[in-house]
């Protein structure tokens, strides 16, 4: 006889694609990696906020001057024509990210991503105004008292101020920041500057103040494809399950499982990487008398996690490798007088008792591509053409017939002086074409960083040229340090 199996829909996929998401209150933690992140925040945000104010040779050191279509990066000036190098730089940045991901996992996420560093600063402000984790939870749960209003508005005031300053700095990379500062002082921004300051400020405010870990979990594409760069030798943050389990509360003074196991296990059980003893795999000896592993189930690692996961459940996509759980666990291990490293930076290879390889095909290939690109970029940027020559043939008429039977073609020469000096340039026909000559002036002065549009007329004598003829123009300066050839075409009527 068959009996119906009771069924219930656990999750209706039409209603919710995601798990329930309570607000996360990460607990503050001090430790090696937290301090490393503070250093990263100061260096990166310091660069961001101060760089636009640095001057170089009478101009802003780093300025992507969009209104003037010129990019200054310290001593170098880039033009729209140099876009190739910008693309090259972006590819270098991407390969660098791949390389470091393969080597050390989500270093980017934990220490360098703008989302991480700004969230960190917004958390500092939140802590300053609303107190530590428990105070914040209490404050949010409590009624709207005078104190709550004061604390919340202080936080909002600081957040908004920082956001606007961030937006201002961001726009300062694209329009000269001194002008922008004057405009700010008199509140006379041009419409678009004001718009982008508010836009970028609002994005910072929303992402670092409210979205936080949700950006990493649900919006960040890198989080989804970084696993493609991972292998068994990539540095990950992992809980040593063999050493920690079974977890449980205990009295102080119970020795670590390592204290017992190191007596039995050979010294080769030491992790080469962190120097902390490992009880992974086969080296683990029978557990201590109370049958507990080293995890005391204090949940400190869960409370500090900014994405609200439990690292003891294994490697998860939400883990941004911020190492807050390592810091938390290390401090607990210190209190228990246990060796550190129950949660640590390690690799899958090390966890399964194999040796970690740093040089392997994946890292070698990324490193080779990266080196080649950087060398090519450095060479190319320092050997860029000092002068760009473009020859545009007159669009309206292929040729003009003159009264004496001669044929004229009109051109516009576009000369871009990419040097920082005034250039006196002469224009000539490259191959000595007796039938063809330049009418009008052949000498041009182009100011540094300027574009000169020079009308140019080529003239062929009667019956000198039939049909289409390739011509080569030569533009050079007096000492011939600039010497650019450019091909174009001369048109005359076909043979009658």
């Amino acid at each position, binding site marked *: 006889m068959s009996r119906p199996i009771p069924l219930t829909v656990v999750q209706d996929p039409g209603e919710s694609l995601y798990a*329930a998401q309570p607000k996360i209150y990460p607990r503050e933690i001090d430790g090696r990696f937290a301090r490393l992140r503070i250093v990263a925040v100061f260096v990166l945000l310091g660069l961001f906020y101060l760089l636009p104010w640095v001057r170089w040779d009478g101009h802003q050191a780093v300025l992507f001057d969009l209104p003037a279509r010129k990019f200054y990066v310290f001593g170098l000036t880039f033009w729209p024509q140099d876009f190739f190098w910008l693309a090259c730089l972006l590819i270098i940045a991407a390969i660098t990210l791949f390389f470091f991901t393969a080597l050390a996992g989500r270093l980017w996420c934990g220490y360098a991503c703008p989302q991480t560093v700004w969230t960190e600063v917004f958390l500092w402000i939140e802590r300053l105004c609303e107190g530590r984790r428990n105070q914040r939870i209490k404050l949010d749960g409590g009624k709207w008292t005078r104190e709550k209003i004061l604390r919340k508005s202080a936080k909002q005031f600081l957040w908004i101020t920082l956001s606007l300053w961030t937006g201002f700095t961001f726009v300062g990379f694209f329009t000269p920041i001194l002008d922008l500062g004057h405009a700010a002082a008199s509140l006379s921004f041009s419409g678009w500057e004001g*718009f982008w300051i508010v836009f970028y400020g609002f994005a910072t405010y929303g992402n670092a103040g409210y979205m936080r870990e949700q950006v990493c979990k*649900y*919006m960040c594409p890198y989080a989804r494809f970084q696993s493609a760069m991972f292998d068994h030798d990539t540095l990950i943050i992992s809980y040593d399950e063999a050493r920690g389990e079974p977890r449980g509360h205990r009295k102080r003074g119970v020795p670590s499982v390592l204290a017992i196991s190191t007596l039995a296990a050979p010294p080769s059980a030491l992790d080469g990487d962190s120097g902390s003893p490992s009880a992974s795999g086969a080296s683990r000896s029978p557990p201590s008398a109370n049958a507990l592993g080293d995890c005391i189930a204090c949940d400190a690692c869960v409370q500090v996690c900014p994405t609200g996961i439990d690292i003891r459940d294994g490697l998860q996509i939400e883990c941004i490798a911020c190492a807050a759980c390592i810091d938390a666990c290390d401090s607990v291990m210190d209190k228990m007088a246990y060796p550190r490293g129950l949660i640590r930076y390690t690799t899958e290879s090390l966890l399964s008792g194999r040796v970690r390889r740093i040089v392997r095909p994946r890292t070698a290939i990324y490193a080779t591509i990266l080196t080649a690109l950087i060398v090519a970029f450095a060479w190319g940027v320092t050997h860029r053409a000092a002068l760009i020559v473009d020859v545009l043939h007159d669009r309206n008429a292929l040729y003009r017939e003159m009264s004496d039977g001669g044929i004229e073609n009109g051109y516009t020469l576009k000369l871009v002086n990419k040097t920082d000096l005034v250039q006196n340039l002469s224009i000539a026909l490259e191959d000595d074409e007796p039938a063809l000559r330049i009418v009008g002036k052949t000498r041009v002065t182009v100011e540094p960083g300027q574009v000169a549009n020079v009308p140019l007329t080529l003239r062929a004598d009667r019956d000198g040229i039939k049909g289409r003829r390739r011509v080569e123009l030569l533009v050079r300066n007096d000492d011939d340090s600039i010497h650019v050839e450019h091909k174009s075409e001369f048109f005359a009527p076909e043979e009658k």
Partner: protein
Amino acid sequence: MSDDNSRAQERDAGDLRAARLRRVGAVAWPSFFAAGVASVVFFAIVDPSELADITWPHLAISREFGYSIGFFMFWACTLGSSAFTALLLSARVKRAARERRQTLESGQ
């Protein structure tokens, strides 16, 4: 019991709001990023003031205005495409859920 029920409903509503917000984020952010890249590539080659000359020469369009229009035009395209994809996918998921529910109900 009814208290439990209303609390569960409240939680479901909260989840739904959060899920919607996340869907908005998942549509807005990648499309914003793609529009940014497209704008950089496009305006590296094309000068907006020259573009203004060949389109609406009688309107005074500054370069900043040109960049901004260009960026929002790209963003409108990518946002529209991403939102449409999200709509198509969510309709499929909803239908699958409804069919599953019907099968369950008819089985009882």
